[in-house]
C-alpha cells in the first residue's frame, strides 16, 4: 500500500540508518525493491515510503535523501492497538520485525539509531520507567530532555572505544498526549531524528575519511621537524662551505614541502567548513525542539552538539599544526634568502675592489700615454724647427744643428702647453 500522509499508528520500535552514496537513487531503489518483494508489497507507484502488515504487526519502510546521504527508516507498530496506546510494549517482538527488514539494508551504515516508544502517565512516570529500564538493562543514561510532550532519552552506548560514536539508542517517553494526536507527534519526532542521524552520519564519515591523517599527524610533523632542523643546521655552516648546488637542493625541497603543506591545509580547511555547515544545520533543527532539561541530565541538544564539535576539533588542530610547520619553513626560506643576500653582497664587494684596481691601472696607463704624447709632440716640433733652421740659415753663420738642439727645451715646453690646452678643453 502506497502512503502519502503519516501513518495513523504509533511505532514502538524504530531503526534509522544513514548511508553515503554517489548514486543514491540506485541504492535506494535496489534495497527498497528487495524489501518490498520479500514482504509482498505492491510494486505500483513510488517505493520510497510504504507500509505492510505482517501478522498482528504493521511495518513502515521509508527512504529520505539529502545531498549524498540516504536515510532509511524502519518502524514496527501494532495493528490491533491503533486507538489504544500500549503503556509498555514488549519490545522484543517489535525488534524482531525490525531485524527481519534491517538485514536487507546495506552493511556498514555511516550512522544508525534505534528508538523505542513508551507511553507514560506523566513526568514522574517517565522517571520511574527510566530507572527500571536502565536497571534491568544494566545501562546508564547519556542525555535526556523534554520536547513538547515527550521525554527524549539517549542511552549511553556500551564498549566506548576510540572510534567515534556512530550508533545511538534512544527512548521516546510520551505523556499527556491523547491517542489520536500521538502518532503524528511521534512520526514528526522520528523525522527530526532522521535528519539528526543524517547530519551525524555525514560528520562521522567526514571524520572517518580523515582519521588516518589525524593519526599520522604527530609522526609526520616530527619527521618534518627533524628535516627542518637539519636544513637549519646546514645553514649555520660558514658561508664559504655551502655550495650553490646545496642551496638549490634546499630550495627545491622547501618548495615541495610548501606545496604539500599548502594542499593539506587547504583540504582540511575545506573539510572544516563542511563540518561547520553540518553543525549549523543541526543547531537550526535543535533550536526548533526548544529542549528543556529533564531530571538534572544533560540535554540531547547539548550532547549532540558536543559530539559534533568533538569531531570537528581535530580538523582545526590539524590546520594549526600544518600552519606552524609552514611558518617554520618560512623561517628556513628566510634563512636561505639571507644567506643568498650575504653571498651576493660579498660578490658585489669583491667586484667593486676589482673594479677599483682596474681603474687605478687605467689612470696610470693614461698618465703614461700623456707623457708619451708630450714627447712625440716635442719630437715633431723639434724636427719641424730643424727643417726651418736648415732652410733659413747659411751654414757659415750659425749651425742649424746647434739651433735645433737649443730648441728642444722650447719644443718640450710648447708640447706640454699644447697637451694641457687640448686635454683641458676635453
Amino acid at each position, binding site marked *: 500500500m502506497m502512503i502519502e500522509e503519516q501513518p495513523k499508528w504509533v511505532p514502538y520500535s524504530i531503526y534509522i540508518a544513514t548511508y553515503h552514496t554517489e548514486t543514491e537513487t540506485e541504492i535506494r531503489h535496489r534495497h527498497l525493491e528487495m524489501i518490498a518483494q520479500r514482504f509482498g508489497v505492491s510494486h505500483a507507484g513510488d517505493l520510497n515510503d510504504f507500509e505492510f502488515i505482517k501478522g498482528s504487526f504493521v511495518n513502515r519502510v521509508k527512504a529520505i535523501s539529502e545531498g549524498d546521504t540516504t536515510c532509511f527508516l524502519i518502524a514496527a507498530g501494532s495493528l490491533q492497538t491503533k486507538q489504544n496506546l500500549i503503556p509498555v510494549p514488549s519490545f522484543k517482538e517489535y525488534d524482531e520485525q525490525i531485524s527481519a527488514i534491517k538485514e536487507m539494508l546495506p552493511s556498514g551504515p555511516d550512522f544508525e539509531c534505534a528508538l523505542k516508544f513508551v507511553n507514560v502517565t506523566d513526568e514522574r512516570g517517565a522517571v520511574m520507567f527510566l530507572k527500571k529500564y536502565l536497571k534491568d538493562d544494566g545501562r546508564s543514561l547519556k542525555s535526556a530532555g523534554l520536547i513538547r510532550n515527550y521525554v527524549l532519552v539517549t542511552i549511553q552506548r556500551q564498549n566506548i572505544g576510540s572510534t567515534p560514536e556512530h550508533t545511538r539508542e534512544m527512548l521516546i517517553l510520551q505523556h499527556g498526549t491523547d491517542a489520536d494526536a500521538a502518532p503524528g507527534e511521534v512520526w514528526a519526532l522520528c523525522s527530526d531524528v532522521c535528519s539528526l542521524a543524517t547530519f551525524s552520519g555525514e560528520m562521522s564519515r567526514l571524520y572517518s*575519511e*580523515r582519521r*588516518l*591523517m589525524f*593519526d*599520522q599527524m*604527530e*609522526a*609526520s610533523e*616530527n*619527521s*618534518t621537524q627533524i*628535516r627542518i632542523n637539519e636544513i637549519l643546521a646546514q645553514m649555520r655552516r660558514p658561508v664559504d662551505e655551502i655550495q650553490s648546488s646545496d642551496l638549490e637542493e634546499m630550495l*627545491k*625541497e622547501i618548495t*615541495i*614541502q610548501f606545496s*604539500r*603543506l599548502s*594542499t*593539506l591545509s*587547504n*583540504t*582540511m580547511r575545506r573539510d572544516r567548513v563542511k563540518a561547520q555547515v553540518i553543525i549549523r544545520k543541526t543547531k537550526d533543527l535543535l533550536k526548533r525542539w526548544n529542549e528543556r532539561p529533564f531530571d538534572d541530565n544533560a540535554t540531547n541538544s547539548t550532547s549532540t552538539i558536543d559530539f559534533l564539535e568533538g569531531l570537528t576539533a581535530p580538523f582545526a588542530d590539524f590546520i594549526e599544526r600544518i600552519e606552524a610547520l609552514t611558518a617554520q619553513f618560512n623561517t628556513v626560506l628566510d634563512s636561505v634568502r639571507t644567506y643568498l643576500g650575504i653571498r651576493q653582497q660579498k660578490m658585489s664587494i669583491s667586484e667593486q675592489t676589482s673594479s677599483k684596481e682596474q681603474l687605478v691601472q687605467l689612470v696610470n696607463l693614461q698618465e703614461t700615454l700623456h707623457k708619451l704624447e708630450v714627447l712625440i709632440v716635442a719630437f715633431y716640433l723639434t724636427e719641424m724647427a730643424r727643417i726651418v733652421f736648415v732652410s733659413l740659415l747659411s751654414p757659415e753663420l750659425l749651425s742649424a744643428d746647434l739651433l735645433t738642439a737649443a730648441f728642444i727645451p722650447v719644443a718640450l715646453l710648447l708640447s706640454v702647453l699644447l697637451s694641457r690646452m687640448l686635454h683641458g678643453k676635453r
Partner: protein
Amino acid sequence: MSLTIPGDWFVNPKVLGEFYRKYKDHPIEEIRRVSFEQGLAFGRQIKGQMGIVGDDAEAIAAVLRAVLKDEPTAKIMGVEKGRVLLRNSGFCPLMTACLSMNLPWTWLCSALGWPFFHGLASAVNPKVDLTMTKRREKGAPYCDHIFEIGKGRLILP
C-alpha cells in the same frame, strides 16, 4: 577493459583520482601486476642511464636513490647484509594526494605504491622480496620497505 596506469601517477593527484574512479572495482591483483611492470620498466631505464651494475643490495639502493632523489620524504636508511631499508616519513606525495582528492590511502598504497617499488628493485634482481614491515596506514609512524634477495615476492604482513 585493458588496464593502463598513467606514468605520472605518483606526482599528479588529479591523475591518481581519475585512475581510482576508473579502476576501483577492478581486481586489485591485476592493478598490482601492471604497477609492478611499470616500476620494473622504470627501474631498468634508470639502471641503464646511471650505469648501475650488479644485482646486490648496493645496486638496488642505487636505483632507489636515483628514483627518489627529489623526494624529501623517502630516505635509504641502511644497506647492510644484503638488505636495503627504505623509510618513508613526513607528508609523502601519495598521502597528500589521497587527502586532497579524497581517495582511499590504503587501497592506493597497496594497489599502486608498493608494487611499483617492488618493480623498481626487481629491475636489479628479479628475486628481490619487498616486505612492508611498518605501514603508516596501519598506524605506524613511518613506512619501512625492506628489500632483500628472496623469491621475488611482495610481502604485506
